[in-house]
């Protein structure tokens, strides 16, 4: 009983490609439907019927060449031309040997978490993050920090305005001797 079997497998095919219904894969999963290229070892689409949660009733599209979707010629503005939704679970986009490119008239990146741990946009880079635009607004509800271990440079080639209800500036020297007034920045420098 352990090894899945199906005595009603159907195949249509030629040397170039085939369509199978109900075959058992080499990793012992029942594939309800499989469409594959006879000229390639890894070119297929399968609709699986058994296996792990993601695999059972899941779809795998595998191709050594690119996987392309072009759609939406007739779609109205503001309607999705291509819609991909992970009903539960994560949406993972990987390009371990290439770029991830996102292009649009506008790009919305929205993280909406229900609690204090979620709703985070994480941008990690091991070389450089470049943001260029005609105007850049960085706005936060509570606090904004710009931090570098080495150097922070703020340059306004025309004008540099720095405003604050109360302004507090401290340098490294205050970490030992301290200033007259004392401030949060100064305390941070001493830390």
């Amino acid at each position, binding site marked *: 009983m352990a090894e899945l079997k199906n005595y009603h497998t159907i195949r249509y095919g030629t040397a170039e490609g085939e369509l199978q219904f109900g075959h058992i894969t080499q990793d012992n999963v029942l594939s309800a439907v499989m469409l594959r290229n006879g000229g390639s070892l890894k070119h297929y689409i399968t609709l699986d019927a058994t296996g792990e949660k993601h695999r059972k009733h899941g779809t795998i599209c595998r191709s050594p060449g690119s996987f392309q979707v072009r759609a939406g010629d007739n779609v109205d503005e503001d309607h999705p031309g291509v819609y991909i939704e992970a009903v539960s679970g994560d949406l993972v986009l990987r390009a371990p*040997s290439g770029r991830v490119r996102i292009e649009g008239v506008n790009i919305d990146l929205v993280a909406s978490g229900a609690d204090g741990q979620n709703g985070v946009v994480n941008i990690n880079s091991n070389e450089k993050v470049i943001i260029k635009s005609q105007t850049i607004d960085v706005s936060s509800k509570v606090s904004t920090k710009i931090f570098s271990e080495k150097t922070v440079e703020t340059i306004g080639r025309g004008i540099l305005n720095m405003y604050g209800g109360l302004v507090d500036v401290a340098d*490294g020297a205050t970490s030992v001797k301290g200033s007259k007034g004392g401030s949060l920045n100064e305390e941070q420098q001493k830390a």
Partner: protein
Amino acid sequence: MIEQGLFKRYFVGRDGFIWWIGQVAPESSWKDNKAGAPVGTNSDIKGFGERYRVRIMGYHTANIDEIPDGELPWAYVMYPVTAGGGGRSGSQSANISQGDFVFGFFMDGEDCQMPVIMGILGNNEYAAVSKNITKARFVPFSGYTENDNVSTTALKTEQGGQVVEQTGAQTTEGKTEAQGDNTGESNNKTVIEAVTASTAIKDAASEVAAEEQSQPIAEPEDCEPIPTGRIQKQIQNVIVEIQKLQKSQYKYSLAVKNNIGDIQEEINNKIEKAQKFIAENMKWIFTQIEKFVINTVNKGMKKTYFLLFPNERPQLKVAVDTINDLIACLFRKLIGGLLQQMGSFVKNAAKKVINAAECVAENMIGATLGKIISQVQNTLNQALSSITSLVGQAQSIVNDIVGTITDVLSFLSCEEEPKCSEVNEWNILSGGNKLSKGDIESIIGKSKNFAKGFETALENAQGGAEGLLDNDFSDAFNVDGCSIGPLLCGPPIAEFFGSGTDAVGNLIIGTAGEVLGIDMKSFGIGYDSEKTFAKVKDQCGKGKGAVIRPIVEDYTDDDGNIQSGVVDIEVVYPGTGYLSAPDGSKGGNEYTWADPDDSIVKKPNGDYDVPKPPGNIIVVGPGDEVTIPPGTIVVTEPIEGDQGGGEEIIGGNPVTVERPGKFTSPLPDFNRVSGDYPSESNGSYPVILYLCEIFIDNTGINYSFEDKVVIEPDIGAKAEAKFDQQGRVISVKVTEQGEGFTEYPRLYIRSETGYNAQLRPKLCIDRVGSDELKQPTSQDKVVRVIDCVGKF
């Protein structure tokens, strides 16, 4: 003709209905009848569509000299009613190839010039089908021409097989006189194409599709300060890929899946790709260390700022800026050399590592960081001298900074952010897993040890710093407690991930290689039923398809505390092909590196040669460690120049040879009587399984109250189902548990009315004492479980 003229009515069926059987002629005689590619108008199509030349038995001879293929009649094709005839764009194409045996009738009765093909008599896997077109006809030959590429879905992965030659014809040899010796070699007897293209034979494309490697998914650096798991996974992946390529020289089943002419070039490509991936991850670590170093230096230097008057501070600022630049420059150069370094590591790993355990990645990281530490210290010593000269009293501060840098890795011990993904490894087939985070304390310890070995003079970081990271990683592969050699393939292990720690158990494997259950040896602590996942991991990748889920419950530990642990598993799919006991093969990384009949040679420097199947010449040198299959003995022969030889190598255990020599890898006799391995004394124990619970995967519909649960085989077990008003299964109670399940039972409900209920058994275990085992009636109820806990 007079008779025909008198009585022939020229209506199909009214002049008699004449059947025929024939063979479709080679396609060179009919393919021009079709266009072959879309054309502008029908004037570009030479023929009339779906027509084939057919050599008809009893009407045409098998001898092509008497009737050439080009002179055979054209046969039309009759389609089934489901195919359509072209009207309203309804049509199907015929799927007829050369060599096919077809049958039909003559539309023109006894004139026999207008054959119609009604059907095809398909091949079967035992039919002797020649690869090439035979000189004589009416012999099965391949539908592929010499120009064609055989479909990857029809390439068999195993050589050999039986064929049934054509018999029953006129001669004693079973062939007609015309066929004689002109029938060619049957192709499917030895290798290549599965002649039916059915799904019954394992094919290359299907096997490749089932061999997808897991890939690491990147996480934010707060979740993964040292990407040890990612590096380990990439090492594993490249090692397995290289091993497959190397073994394909000796094994047909691998060669058919790797149609590569220049294997070394392909291996180099794999190494290049892997070194890039590993270097990317190492760069994350380097940038983190850079951050720590700059932070430490700037914090230390802040203590000097107050010593200078404000008018002197611009000079100080320049000095601090220079130091920061120097550090940044050093790391830039270190990172610049990473790619080359990782290439060196991967090349070494490919020869030395069969099982890329976590410690391999840790050792590599430790070795690399060890060198960084000493180099960073040296650079800082030089760089901080400018501060010392500017601020006279600063020497002690400089010493403090340099001293602190030795703790460069301690910052990596920070706790991970609470909201990190539980899954950071993905396989499109088998799904998610959690990569190891690595033992940071262990890495720190290793890096400090390695650092001692890197006490070399550092060139000025501002000057050419090529070779800053020169490191052959030879030490990284030779660390006590880090086993990188091949593992003995045995039963799979259960992995629990997502939350909690320390749950371990021995999987129980049935007679058909399926997972029946688990014997938990430790429930572990801290498991969350919503965030705990389980996988069956086969170290050698022999078994496939098992799906298990953990059962997380509270239990009272030995100290009387309530803990949440994995107390059992559900077997969702039992899978197949898992080993219940070691079979002599070896491997790791979920790949079988050496088969039981392979001979293995390990070089004195730790490099492994590709395992050789029986019948290959193996040349050995002094110090080589040779392992040949158990039960075999070889004596080495002298190599060229009559050197060495004459050493006896007894199979089963590694033997270190002292003289050069060569031998032919022996073929073991697996029919000999072998001992019960492993015996109870070396790690196995018996269990008896009973049916303890039945899960409902699908309630089904329309069952009635008298419907019965069927258990196959039942081994004395019985169960009763309850249904709701709509006939859905709402519960199944095990009324008799049975005893002695050795295979996964099939459960269903026998019903005149119901549909689609899916039930799944849960087998529980009783350990059996040795006394009970002596009873013959108990023996066939016993499943032996290998105690794997702590062995892998």
